[in-house]
């Protein structure tokens, strides 16, 4: 460690106390983001400590990355400056939970899996099941706008987050929203934090609404020979009175990645529509009946009802799409593309052609008819194909042209450096920059990681 780093560490140690500052290279390696390693990682235990650290960091112009379960740090650009990791995973208390009010408050470091277990004891859940559930923290899930298969019925963090407490880049402790399910008092600053990648502040408390667990649920899978049949089923479903809680579509590439994971998926080389219904038995039976009929009309090759064990496996796969893909190929490049249902078939046909032209395999997951995840999967030996950068660039251009809102959620560092991960900024950029200056005037929080260079 350099002299500067030593003196920095000793000053920072005053804020958090012994044992809660890490400076050894082995520990710091786990905080690495896009090849950048911080000089120290701090493990604060309170909002007040975070405020002190940020006041100091702001005065010293140190780059700070808020860190939770380290599961979504691949999102965004490499930080311009990264001196300190502010690891809030130790702030993991459930602060308030009143089951009858269907509301709760948590510290940012509570993992999704821990919270889920506590809620299930009371017959409730928070519909934010996200990738890496055992490690991902609620603060991180919100800051990364992590996605969930349950969004078809329950929406995203925007629909579930009631309020936030946070510390700004200058070390100012503040809050927004409230703890009740309906509230329009003051400006909804907390909405800005969703998907903000830690560029506006460090979240210290999150208030959510919870939901009663459904009485029962049943998952159905319809297999199709091609994309057209799958979308015919989706269209029929959207026009019907059925109200499923999950509607995800897998292309053959994704179906293959999920195969052998105990989900009992139908034959390979199929497009799969995964639908889950919840509620009373009569509701489930109606979904089963009508979905089977719609699938027939759409010329499905198979229509199956999963048993509970298979359902749990497939639900897990849907949540863990991103980790499964990157587990299969570390150089996987995953796009997150928001699009309208009617634009999806043409866009996907183009995407698949593009991948084929560059000799790249791809795996596609369509989430809730709202977001398409496209994973480009380069072969392990880069000599076989070097088409990844140009394919990624063409895919980004294609999305920008077709009005889809795309970003690269995960990719090798070379791609990140060459292409960037964000679409070009739009007319809102001036406001986004001004807001950044309000929350973080010295630009010390996750600098350079966000859209438009923020």
């Amino acid at each position, binding site marked *: 460690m350099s002299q500067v780093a030593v003196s920095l560490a000793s000053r920072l140690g005053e804020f958090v106390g012994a044992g809660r500052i890490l400076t050894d290279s082995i520990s710091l390696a786990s905080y690495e983001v896009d090849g950048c390693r911080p000089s120290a990682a701090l493990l604060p235990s309170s909002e007040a400590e975070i405020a002190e650290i940020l006041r100091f960091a702001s005065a010293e112009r140190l780059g700070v990355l808020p860190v939770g379960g380290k599961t979504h740090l691949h999102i965004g650009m490499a930080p311009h400056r990264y001196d300190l990791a502010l690891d809030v995973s130790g702030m993991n208390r459930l602060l308030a939970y009143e*089951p*009858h*009010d269907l*509301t709760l408050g948590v510290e940012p470091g509570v993992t999704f899996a821990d919270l889920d277990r506590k809620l299930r004891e009371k*017959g409730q859940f928070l519909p934010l099941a996200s990738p890496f559930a055992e490690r991902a923290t609620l603060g991180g899930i919100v800051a990364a*706008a992590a996605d969930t298969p349950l969004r078809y019925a329950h*929406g*995203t963090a*925007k*629909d579930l987050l009631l309020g936030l407490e946070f510390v700004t880049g200058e070390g100012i*402790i*503040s809050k*927004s929203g*409230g*703890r*009740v*399910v*309906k*509230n*329009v*008092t*003051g*400006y*909804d*600053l907390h*909405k*800005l934090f969703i*998907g*903000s990648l830690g560029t*506006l502040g460090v979240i210290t408390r999150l208030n959510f609404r919870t939901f*009663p*667990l*459904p009485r029962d649920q049943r998952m159905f899978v319809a297999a199709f020979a091609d994309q057209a049949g799958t979308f015919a089923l989706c*269209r029929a479903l*959207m026009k019907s*009175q059925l109200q499923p809680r999950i509607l995800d579509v897998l292309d053959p590439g994704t179906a293959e990645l999920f195969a052998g994971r105990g989900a009992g998926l139908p034959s390979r080389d199929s497009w799969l529509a995964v639908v889950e219904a919840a*509620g*009373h038995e*009569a*509701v489930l039976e*109606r979904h089963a009946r009508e979905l089977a009929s719609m699938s027939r009309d759409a010329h499905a090759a198979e229509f199956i009802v999963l048993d509970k064990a298979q359902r749990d496996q497939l639900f897990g796969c849907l949540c863990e799409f991103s980790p499964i893909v990157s587990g299969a190929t570390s150089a996987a490049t995953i796009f997150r593309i*928001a*699009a*309208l*249902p009617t634009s999806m078939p043409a866009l996907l046909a183009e995407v698949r052609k593009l991948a084929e032209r560059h000799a790249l395999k791809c795996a596609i997951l369509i989430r809730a008819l*709202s*977001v398409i995840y496209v994973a480009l999967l380069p072969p392990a030996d880069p000599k076989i194909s070097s088409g990844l950068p140009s394919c990624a660039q063409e895919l980004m251009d294609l999305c920008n042209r077709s009005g889809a*809102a*795309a970003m690269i959620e995960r990719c090798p560092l070379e791609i990140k450096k060459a292409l960037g991960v*964000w679409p070009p*900024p*739009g*007319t*809102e950029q001036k*406001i*986004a920059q*001004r*807001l950044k200056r*309000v929350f973080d005037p010295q630009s010390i929080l996750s600098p350079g990681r966000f*859209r438009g260079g923020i």
Partner: protein
Amino acid sequence: MQRTIIRELERLVGGAGVLSSAEDLLLYEYDGSVEEAHPDAIVFPRRKEDVVEIVKLANRHEVSIVGRGAGTGLSGGALARQGGIVVAFSRMNHILEIDAENQRAVVEPGVVNLDLSRAAEKYGLYFAPDPSSQKSCTIGGNVSENSGGPHTLAYGVTSNHVTGLELVLPEGDVVQVGGRTMETPGYDLTGLLVGSEGTFALVTEIIVRLLRLPEDVRTLLAIYDSLEDATDSVVDITARGIIPAACEMLDGWTLRAVEAYVHAGFPLDSAAVLLMEVEGVRESAEAQAAEIIEVCRNHRAREVRRARDDRERALLWKGRKEAFGAVGRVSPSYYVLDGVIPRTKLTPTLLRIEEIAKRYGFVIGNIFHAGDGNLHPLILFDHRDPDQFRRARAAGTEIMQLCVEMGGTLTGEHGVGMEKNELMPLMFNETDLDLMRKVRAAFNPVGRLNPDKVLPLGKGCGETRLRPFPLSAGRNA
């Protein structure tokens, strides 16, 4: 206002697009809250370009601008507190597109809420937020106030249904935020703008999500001899895993006032009625209705009625939707409050409100969205008596304080506006308010747009300040 400004406005939008005579302006001194403020001119743009030019003109002459929809707001959000130009969006009232397949609509801000649902009906779709004023309030106003309504318990408020906006910033730039898709990379500026009460930007185009009309609706009315049994039922229904589409309560005093006017069939000797609706897939609506009836009976409901057809359903809802009108018949004025408390605190809160009513010598009726704990206490008073004014205001403040003390908030759907901006310190400290001021300045740097709203005036003053006559006398509520 200088004559030159009026003339310039007339040049922009034509003589018929500007009002400036004293008698015309009188109509724009009010909104649904009967706060009062005097504008200098009303201008009616027809397109975004008009709005841009109006904003630039206001900047050149350094006058304030305030956006206005139908003027049904309940917190003075559309009133020109510092005078200046009111930009009334009633001529920008076109539904630009209904994209039925993608369940989206693109509308101008002056489109009336119910008109959109009516236009979408032929596709089997509707716009979910349904404020009581939905026959006249505009979607632009709903966006500003983040409006709710009885059915927000299941479907959320306006914010949950807006995916994109086109804005004219107070400096004259046109900015797009969000889009048609459910998400866009970058900060969720749409989420921040909805509910900013017209203090950040003028909205010129709105993209909303439409929902499929439910196949089946079951409407139930449970009648109770005790208020506590009614509130316990609400808690128990959600504990059973049922989230009704709506769950409304009227207390004994209010249901009697309503019955005298609407004849909805509420028994005059009951202590409370609960109006509940479950909807969705037929099988689900039926099963949930059966379960709700069981819960209500377990909590000693005297009777549970089911609407047998649309006519009966409309009658039950009439009792709820016209309740404010009914109260207007029995009192010269009333002050509508809009606090939220956790659902489990309903009984103690209502008891405390009763105590406050007794102490001040007022009748306070309670009609509210029980499912989400959104109270609308109605303080009855006579605005011609200055002492009653003062005491009604003090009682209202005490009730708002009580809501915050119970873990709730100052407003669930009516907005802060100029009615509660001085009460904001009950929920937010000076640091929080200062950050909100800075966020507002990021959009509205010199405060030209809708000044003196939402945040307390007089920076640095942490105490609650009260203006002489801040009461909602419920003229149009």
